[in-house]
């Protein structure tokens, strides 16, 4: 029941921070070769996005894996737009016909969001009524498992935040809601998790922040 390990891990990283608009972006480079990027909202101090980059594999560049926050996904597949910076080499970003395989755009889509008090998952494109879903906390797998009794959707959702505090998910903290083809699962943050996040913010206070990009741009324009 402690977050010591996680804090030490963050401390060991080489950190870079910059502010752009209302976001503070932090890049962690861990000694084991992994990288993590976070985006904090300047007003609330809540993490909006977090992505991981695991160490380099055999071939090709490593990709960013989004743990938290919206994926910059393009709805218009055929247009073949330029890849988004955070999207890495995502299959969605390739021109039509060049992708190998992708989920159809009617397939359920899971996103995660963190607020001050809760962790929220939204699963879009799930048209079935609320009583079809069965959302359970599985202490053994340390995850929340979503089942459907019509066998259309199944997902093991890991909760890395709780792992970092080394506590299992608890059923009592889960509440679900279904609306507009979207299943919303809300997990109330336990006290220890809030405490951990506060500690992390304290840690980040000491990280120097680079110049605001907007200021920089304005300065350049003025010349």
């Amino acid at each position: 029941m402690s977050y010591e390990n996680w804090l030490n891990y963050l401390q060991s990283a080489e950190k870079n921070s910059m502010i752009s608009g209302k976001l503070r972006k932090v890049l962690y480079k861990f000694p084991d070769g992994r990288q993590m990027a976070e985006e904090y909202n300047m007003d609330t101090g809540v993490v909006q996005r977090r992505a991981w980059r695991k160490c380099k594999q055999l071939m090709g560049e490593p990709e960013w894996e989004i743990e938290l926050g919206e994926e910059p996904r393009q709805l218009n597949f055929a247009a073949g737009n330029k890849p988004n910076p955070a999207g890495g080499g995502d299959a969605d970003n390739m021109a039509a016909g060049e992708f190998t395989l992708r989920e159809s755009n009617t397939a359920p889509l899971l996103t995660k969001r963190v607020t001050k008090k809760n962790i929220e998952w939204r699963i879009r494109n799930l048209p079935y009524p609320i009583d079809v879903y069965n959302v359970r906390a599985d202490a053994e797998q340390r995850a929340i498992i979503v089942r459907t009794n019509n066998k259309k959707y199944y997902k093991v959702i890991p909760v890395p935040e709780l792992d970092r505090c080394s506590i299992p998910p608890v059923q009592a903290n889960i509440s679900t809601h279904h609306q507009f083809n979207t299943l919303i699962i809300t997990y109330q943050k336990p006290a220890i998790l809030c405490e951990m996040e506060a500690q992390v913010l304290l840690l980040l206070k000491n990280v120097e922040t680079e110049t605001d990009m907007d200021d920089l741009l304005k300065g350049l324009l003025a010349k």
Partner: protein
Amino acid sequence: MGETEKIEVRDITRIERIGAHSHIRGLGLDDVLEARAVSQGMVGQKDARRAAGVVVQMVREGKIAGRCILLAGEPSTGKTAIAVGMAQALGTETPFTSMSGSEIYSLEMSKTEALSQALRKSIGVRIKEETEIIEGEVVEIQIERPATGTGQKVGKVTLKTTEMETNYDLGNKIIECFMKEKIQAGDVITIDKASGKVNKLGRSFTRARDYDATGAQTRFVQCPEGELQKRKEVVHTVTLHEIDVINSRTHGFLALFSGDTGEIKQEVRDQINNKVLEWREEGKAEINPGVLFIDEVHMLDIECFSYLNRALESDMAPVVVMATNRGITRIRGTNYRSPHGIPIDLLDRMIIIRTVPYTEKEVKEILKIRCEEEDCIMHPDALTILTRIATDTSLRYAIQLITTANLVCRRRKATEVNTEDVKKVYSLFLDENRSSKILKEYQDDYMFSEISEHEEEAAAVAGGGAKRRLDTGDGDAQAMEH
């Protein structure tokens, strides 16, 4: 679902061509590396087989790099057979590259480049990698081709597990994969998300009764459980050469298929060696040294031998097995004579396995095995005659006679080859001895017979010539002995 209407006959047994050594399935050794008299297609040659078994054990342990083994012996005493047996005994996991000494003479590539490619083809690297795969049963598959026949194909597939179901859009490349694998509804498949490789695991049990006629090889598997997308640790086995090729060109791995590799820079190789060693330190990769077999090694010239001398010192070198049927002869590219046509300094680094001529009993056994391999039923008397022929002429000639006698036998609509058939083909086809005898008798009637006084020079030129079939090589060797 137009695809289901034309049920194709699949999984029929593949018809394979029968090669000179296709009857060999291993070295025929027992657990303590003692050679069994007749086993796995190998007959006799006990000492050589036992020695080869020790070599195989050495390769399996994989600790020692850059050893060199020479299989030396008279023509048709089973040198290549032992090498093939070693390859079989090592299994598919261990890389085994087989080449002939004369293969290195190419106009597009230098000799040493060809040799170092061959050496690097014989070093396997097992790489553990975590990849995302999709594993599920195909519920429905739709592939639409445009009416004009060209242009983009559009594909959709629905996959399910016991718990869930998802629709996927298919890209052009993966549609090809699906069509090649003949994926249809009811198959359980895996798709590697990164590479787009489609793999068919079998048919789902729930679809077992769809068709009455299923091939014997159809495997039935359970529908997978849980999520469709899984993270799995997969192990790739690639050779160093393949990594070289992928990294040496902008074409990437396509060069692997076109074979147009050209010269690979030494810097690239060094970089890759370092990278592989790094991976090994990190526990991501394992080096799996294999075997390079060079047949007719006397065809290599002095440059190659000195290159090999150095290449074998490297700790990335495979175990090199060479075979030769030459005695003391000239080293190619020099005027020096040396045992086996190999420089003494390289011979010094080798351990030499000698093969001895087969006894009559062993020859009979080999012929029997070949008869079985070629689906030829032979009367015992015919086999005795054939054995006699084999001891008088050569084993290869006798093996040739099996096929021809079998054809003659079938012409008279019999199933069993008898002595008459063998006699007939013996008179129809000459062996090397009889042929050269005729040549000697009628030498003056043939063209260019006046050159005969320069015979020696001609023989020397022929000896250094291009790759020839082994049996003519035998004749050559025997002619030299005369």
